[in-house]
């Protein structure tokens, strides 16, 4: 079985899984876990977009 993911989708899947575990392990209450997990996901996904634009600017 081969999984065909674009680079962006691969980064999003990575962000989703990593932020889920970060949220559960780094906070104590379910509400804080959800908030922190969401925060990590936004940072992961946002970081990818910012890095992408930075590379585009460097290239042009």
């Amino acid at each position, binding site marked *: *079985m*081969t*999984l*065909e*993911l674009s*680079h962006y989708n*691969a980064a999003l*899947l*990575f962000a*989703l*899984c*990593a932020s*889920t*575990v*970060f949220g*559960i*392990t780094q906070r*104590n*209450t379910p509400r804080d876990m959800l908030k922190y997990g969401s925060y990590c996901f936004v940072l992961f996904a946002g970081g990818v977009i910012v890095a992408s634009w930075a590379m585009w600017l460097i290239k042009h």
Partner: protein
Amino acid sequence: MAQNTTTINRRTGETNASAGSMATIAPLAGWLVPGLGHFIQRRYVRGALILAAVFIMFFAGLGMQGKVYSFNTGDLLDILGFVGDLGSGVLYFLARSMDWGAGNIHRAVADYGTKYIVVAGLLNIIAAVDAHHIAIGKKP
């Protein structure tokens, strides 16, 4: 009165012994099977989410034709890759026994897959440490 105090002390001792053994068993179980350290402490939702996250990352990595490292004493990054992979516990041993994760240097995404597999192991180690913290009462 003295008898009551003795009973309380005995019960407290039993609880401490139970918590002490759980502090060892929970992280080991959590390492071996992702999420099991939380399951045996009745944190079912957390355990299920950890199980899902680690399984998805590990098998997505294999699906992207990522490499599963074997024990080596060569390049430092290869050694660290092995340590990271080993964090997945039973998933790592399953992959090694089934000869999965040969890697594919012709696909760029396969390199992502290798990182997925390493990070799945690292996340599982974080989760196992979290199970230990729950067992010792540091976390609810």
